């Protein structure tokens, strides 16, 4: 018997283990890629899921921290054997994590959360702000058909086009751009200070990308605008979209995700957001990571980001 109120992605199948660090390399300012050996976890995890990481045998900080799957690492024979996560140094744990060397151990439990649904998309637009690019290398490869994830491997119809819109404070914070470029996807960059790419917000990049798609001509920041498609029969529920097959996935600061959700709703483009909330356990028992999520009738209730998310339909979030 299962609890009927349990989330679909309850942590019953997660494993807790002590893992060995293989690499911990700096990618950008205050940003590192951590690789640890975890074959079972690497076989199970899918894009958008996360792991909890804690310094082994250390009670300061006491609690673990959630970090999204950046990618899995394959052995020469093609078997998933290790996990990559990318983190920004923000507080005590990430500061100490940055000093961890290969051979040291960490306590890890996962895979956790629901991950991005394998919903088909002709054009997948990934919108990332700050350190929000981290769930997307795996997702991009899955939609490009170049990698599979999960056990058994989940099936995702190949997308015709994958685009990354990635905004950061400044050029020195951009982490992993070459990883995305290597995949052969379109990478569009914005920075708050104009030190690289578009001088402005990543939401501008999304608007530009959508304007470009609808016109299939050159669009510049000076001439782009978003026009909602006309409703047939005046019924928004029809989801008649000007962007058939387009799907937006988003991860970043809350205000940015809210704006991306608004743009997507205006154009009736399906949009999923991956929330980042303060999280203590990652397995659904502490209720610290709750977000306001609407039900079918439009009323909101607190949902746990760890087991009922972190990926939610953007239209369901009560921002």
């Amino acid at each position, binding site marked *: 018997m299962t609890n009927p109120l349990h989330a679909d992605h309850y942590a019953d199948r997660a494993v807790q283990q002590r893992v060995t660090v293989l690499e911990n390399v700096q990618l950008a300012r205050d940003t590192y890629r951590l690789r640890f050996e975890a074959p079972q976890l690497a076989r199970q995890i899918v894009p958008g899921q996360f792991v909890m990481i804690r310094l082994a045998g250390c009670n300061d900080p*006491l609690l673990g921290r959630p970090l999204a799957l950046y990618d899995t690492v394959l052995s020469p024979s093609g078997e998933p054997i290790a996990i990559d996560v990318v983190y920004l140094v923000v507080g005590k744990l990430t500061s100490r994590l940055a000093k961890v060397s290969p051979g040291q151990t960490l306590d890890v439990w996962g895979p956790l959360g629901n991950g991005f649904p394998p919903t088909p998309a002709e054009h997948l637009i990934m919108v990332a702000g700050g350190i929000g690019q981290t769930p997307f290398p795996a997702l991009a490869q899955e939609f490009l058909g170049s990698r599979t994830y999960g056990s058994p491997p989940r099936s995702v119809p190949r997308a015709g086009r994958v685009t990354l819109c990635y905004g950061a404070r400044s050029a020195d914070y951009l982490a992993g751009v070459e990883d995305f470029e290597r995949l052969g996807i379109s990478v569009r960059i914005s920075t708050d200070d104009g030190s690289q790419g578009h001088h402005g917000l990543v939401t501008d990049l999304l608007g530009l990308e959508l304007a470009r798609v609808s016109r299939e001509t050159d669009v510049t920041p000076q001439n782009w605008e978003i026009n909602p498609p006309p409703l047939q029969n005046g019924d928004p529920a029809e989801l008649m979209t000007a962007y058939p097959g387009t799907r937006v996935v988003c991860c970043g600061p809350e205000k940015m995700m809210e704006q991306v959700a608004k743009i997507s709703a205006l154009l009736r483009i399906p949009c999923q957001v991956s929330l980042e909330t303060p999280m*203590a356990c990652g397995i659904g028992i502490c*209720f610290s990571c709750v977000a306001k999520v609407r039900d079918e009738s439009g009323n909101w209730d607190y949902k746990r980001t760890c087991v009922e998310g972190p990926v939610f339909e953007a239209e369901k979030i009560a921002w």
Partner: protein
Amino acid sequence: MTTPPPADSAPVDLSVQLGRLRLPNPILVASGTAGMLNSIGLDNDGIDAFLEHHLPYLATVGAPTIVSIAGRDCDEFIAICAQLEGHAGAAAVELNISCPNVSHGVDLGTDPALCAKVVAGCRAACSLPIIAKLTPNVTNIATIAKAAADAGADAISAINTCLGMAIDWRRRRPLLGNVVGGLSGPAIKPIALRAVYQIARAVKIPVIGIGGIATIDDVMEFLVAGATAVQIGTANFYNPQGTMALLDQLPAALAMLGAKSVADVVGTLVVP
């Protein structure tokens, strides 16, 4: 605790008697929740949803279910107890008269007369074993425990979280939504040990130790201090499989003291 048990040790009886409630072992998972500071409160669907959805499921997992309840006032505690009466699957009820994030709860657990009133009311309303969960945020926790025992509580559980606070001084803002919150985890273990020791000396009913318990050494310290059982809360957050490990380690730890059962070590602290 790395020393293996003596090879010729007899099997150790892990079962414990909490008043009328018999448990197969003394390691319990705590309700709700260096230290952890929270102002989460008690997020739940209410007693009706609990009885309809959660309790039938919990009855199937193979461990006795102690229902930890909180009401906004004395009458609500009693009403919930009355609703629990007769529900198969509930082995006992724990009265959380001590959650620092639910202000009325603190009031009931900080005054001996109010504590006695809510325990007596619940005692009259339901026949399940009643456990009173106490707050450490009082001058004399033994007085409160004695009031609960005299009013008919079958056991005392202690402690709930210690009131605490965290501040972002750069922004001059509290870090918790409720300004102050409850501190738990290893940081409060010495406070909890002291409280359990004081309560166990003051009352005849069993005490369940709570507060920063994470290792087998912690478990043994609480048993020796006078706890008949322990609850693991915060450690579940940072070591999800740790509670099961404690159960595996317990027989060897008891054997090290030559104990044949948990009861053999409970309250055996030698104070020079």
